[in-house]
């Protein structure tokens, strides 16, 4: 079934991802601060989650049976806010208030302030532990919701992440999917320079997780990876998604300087032309 993915679905998702990128850049430009690189690298994965994979309920946003998503790499929240606005959790116009006083859109995700945000994050490394708690609760109460956690690659430097990987195995959480946005850059430079991660797949397999490596910008592959996770039993899945930091804007791609930098007027104009043209 997963071999024949509807072409219409892929082009629909592509359109949505383009929309997300446009909104990410506009909102960071309006705030004149924020993190474009790691938001752009996650656009296809987030689009797939919210427009295809996850069960969400707009009429009852805190529906106890909804699927949950935790953006552990909280600084990438413009991509999350964009998709939440697109889905209708709050008005698109509100994106322009990002990071400003009295805004519901905080610099890092806040579950008490922003509709649709399932958990507060921002300090790196904590999201997987939270997801494991949610997934275990689902098992305890025999709920069929699924839990998705997105980790950044730099975030894997944190020890708590590996504590959580161990716990995920212990509790056999096959209702949990971790996606590593593997763009290979962190604030100070390449992962390899700052703190080498490789061999990442071997490490995760050694923790006895179901490990799937995929291209994080290819919708066909992302959709298949999530489908494969659903077919896996008695262990959690981690999708190592190879991505490009700053994806979609040529002057931002693979440039560590765009980790936490806002575009100026001219840069925004060029970036939006590129994204719309592509």
């Amino acid at each position, binding site marked *: 079934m997963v071999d024949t993915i509807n072409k219409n679905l892929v082009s629909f998702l592509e359109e949505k991802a383009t929309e997300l990128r446009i909104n990410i850049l506009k909102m960071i430009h309006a705030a004149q601060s924020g993190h474009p690189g790691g938001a752009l690298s996650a656009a296809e994965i987030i689009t797939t989650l919210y427009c295809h994979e996850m069960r969400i309920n707009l009429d009852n946003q805190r529906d106890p049976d909804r699927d949950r998503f935790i953006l552990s790499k909280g600084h990438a929240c413009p991509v999350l806010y964009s998709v939440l606005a697109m889905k209708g959790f709050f008005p698109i116009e509100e994106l322009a208030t990002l990071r400003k006083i009295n805004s519901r859109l905080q610099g890092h995700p806040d579950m008490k302030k922003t509709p649709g945000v399932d*958990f507060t*994050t921002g300090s790196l490394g904590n999201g997987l532990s939270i*997801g494991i708690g949610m997934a275990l609760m*689902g098992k305890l109460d025999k709920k069929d919701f699924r839990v998705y956690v997105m980790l950044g690659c730099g975030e894997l430097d944190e020890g708590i992440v590996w504590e959580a990987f161990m716990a995920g195995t212990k509790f056999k959480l096959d209702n949990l999917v971790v996606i590593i946005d593997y763009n290979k850059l962190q604030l100070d430079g390449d992962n390899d320079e700052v703190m080498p991660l490789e061999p990442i797949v071997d490490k995760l397999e050694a923790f006895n997780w179901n490990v799937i490596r995929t291209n994080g910008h290819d919708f066909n592959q992302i959709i298949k990876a999530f489908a494969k996770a659903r077919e896996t039993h008695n262990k959690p899945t981690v999708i190592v998604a190879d991505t490009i930091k700053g994806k979609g804007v040529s002057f931002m791609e693979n440039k560590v300087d765009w980790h936490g930098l806002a575009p100026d007027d001219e840069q925004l104009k060029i970036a939006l032309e590129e994204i719309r043209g592509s």
Partner: protein
Amino acid sequence: MQTASMRSAYGESLVEIGQKNKNVVVLDCDLSKATKTSLFAEKFPDRFFNMGIAEQNMMSFAAGLASCGKIPFATTLAVFASMRPCEQIRTSICIGNMNVKIGAPYGGLCTGENGPTHQCIADINTMRGLPNMTILAPSDATSCKACVLWAAQHKGPVYIRVLRDNEPVIYSKASEVDVLSGNRLKDGNDIVIFSNGFTSHMAVVAADLLEKEGISVTVHDIISVKPIPEKAVISMAKKCGAVMTVEEHNIYGGLGSAIAEVVSQKCPVPMKILGVSDYFSDSGSHQSLLQRAGLTVENIVKQTKSLLNKKE
């Protein structure tokens, strides 16, 4: 003097609330035999989760459980519960006001022989800086039970500082304990002693001795360090005109500081903070470490007299 074990009271109380409420779950970091969460684990194996020696993961994991309606009691030794995962307590629990209870046995100096790595004199101050956190420091096994029962029905994070074994019994029934306002253990007019934990019974003994010398002392057992029962503090400080605090904690940032914040701004009177004077101690018996800190009946008597001399 009748004594009882606070950690046992903690474990037994968890079983009691576990029976009443199936949403209560208990987590521990490989110390369940010491913290007595083992009692809950035996009774409710499906609701007990041993998280291994990984405190940070335990706290964020507890927050995840709480976000789905569970009432987790995340438990490990006070010194590790408050410090190793402090950041997870802030970010995953306090910012979102998650319904997580942190059970922290072995608070204070009772781990004496293990040395300064295991002695816990900086947990209250660490937790006190976190908005949304309630901090309870019961003084005996009965009030410990009252705190667990209270925490289970309170919505929001609670840190419960539990002690160990052989604590003198102060209260006869948990239902008599006023967790939020604290409890007057002795009524007097010349000076008020605010205390909590192991030192509360010392304050009562000291007050009895002082009474024989004609000095009339109020002893008020403050269980809730945060929120501090401000009204009670003000009224007793005004009535007595001098305030002393006694606690098994660093003199910076604990009960003494919490009381001083009220007294200095609302009803300034002479005040003395008695506790561990900002040093790391050594291995030694609990008693010897209390002695070194000046946390003895004799010193409370002496400090009270000296403070009374400063009273106008």
